[in-house]
């Protein structure tokens, strides 16, 4: 296999569309961790994030011909991941409501912490990160996704506007408000 790093994402996608599966593997390699991070920060569950990541990467494979070079590959991929994340969260919310409605008076919900799957971090950092992660979950999803894409994924406002399909001004104002809301949540 030729050194795939010589190709841009768009070139790799074109090669993949014409049947080169190595190009797909390279795309997966480039985006896997970035996407996992984005999805996890959005859904706040490692296993669910992994499922969503898998769905996203499979969709890139099966729907490769739907990608048109008018958009950046990264924008297209993040859009798919964002849509899957929102759908999964909605499903989970619905499941929770159904479970609660079927609970008896004496039933209790026990949450078992998954220590093995927790990322390896120092105690101090973990605390502040966990606080930020919780604060992120308190944001409505239309504030949460732009702020993750900007402040954790470090994407440009222009790309975020394309991914979320909202005007640039709206993205800027949502990020600005989300930051202030996060700051007040963390202060509490």
């Amino acid at each position: 296999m030729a050194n795939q790093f010589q190709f841009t994402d768009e070139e790799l996608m074109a090669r993949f569309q014409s049947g080169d599966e190595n190009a797909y593997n390279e795309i997966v390699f480039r985006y896997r961790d970035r996407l996992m991070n984005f999805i996890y920060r959005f859904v706040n569950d490692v296993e669910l994030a992994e499922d969503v990541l898998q769905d996203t990467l499979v969709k890139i494979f099966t729907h490769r011909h739907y990608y048109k070079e008018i958009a950046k590959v990264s924008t297209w991929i993040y859009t798919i991941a964002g849509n899957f994340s929102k759908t999964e969260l909605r499903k989970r919310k619905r499941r929770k409501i159904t479970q609660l409605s079927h609970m008896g008076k004496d039933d209790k919900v026990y949450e078992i912490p998954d220590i093995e799957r927790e990322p390896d971090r120092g105690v101090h950092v973990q605390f502040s990160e966990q606080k930020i992660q919780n604060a992120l979950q308190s944001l409505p999803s239309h504030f949460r996704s732009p702020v993750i894409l900007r402040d954790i994924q470090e994407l440009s406002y222009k790309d975020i506007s394309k991914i979320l399909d909202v005007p640039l001004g709206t993205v800027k104002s949502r990020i600005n408000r989300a930051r202030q809301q996060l700051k007040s949540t963390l202060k509490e």
Partner: protein
Amino acid sequence: MDRYQFEDYLSDYIENNLNPSKRKEFEEYLKANSSGEELVESVRELLDSMKSMSEIKASSGFMGKLHKRIEAEKNRPSIQSPEKRTYLGFAPFHLGMMVVVLIGLVFVGMELLPTDGTKITTVQPNIELSFPPDLSDPFPPDIKKDEMVKLDQDSSGVKDQDTKAPFDLEKRGATFVKDQN
């Protein structure tokens, strides 16, 4: 600058996206309002913390699972490019349009058909021409045979044709009888 404007420009100020005049205005507000300065600092800290958050990675078995699913997807017949997908040789959109038009035509046709079993008849105007019996002479009485030949020769020019119509039936005594039935 008021508090609302200050909050609106907060991110632009932190990211250095304000033009010089707005930046000056913003900084003047900061000097006059210590709470504003605190807000700027705490948002800056938050952004630094978010940037330094650890990266969550997929588990070691993730790629294996993904490749298994990809193999399963490859064997599914439904994977086709949007351009290649056809039904009866037509693109889905075109086939859909054709079906809609066909259904529309059938519906309109059914609406036009009588439902009580009556026979459809068409009404045609019944016009009879009757001529007087002395029409054995093909030339009208007021036009000489030589003039007819001349008119035929001039037939390429249309300017005089309307003034002397050779077969004006009413002139020749024909009467129209309209059937009232």
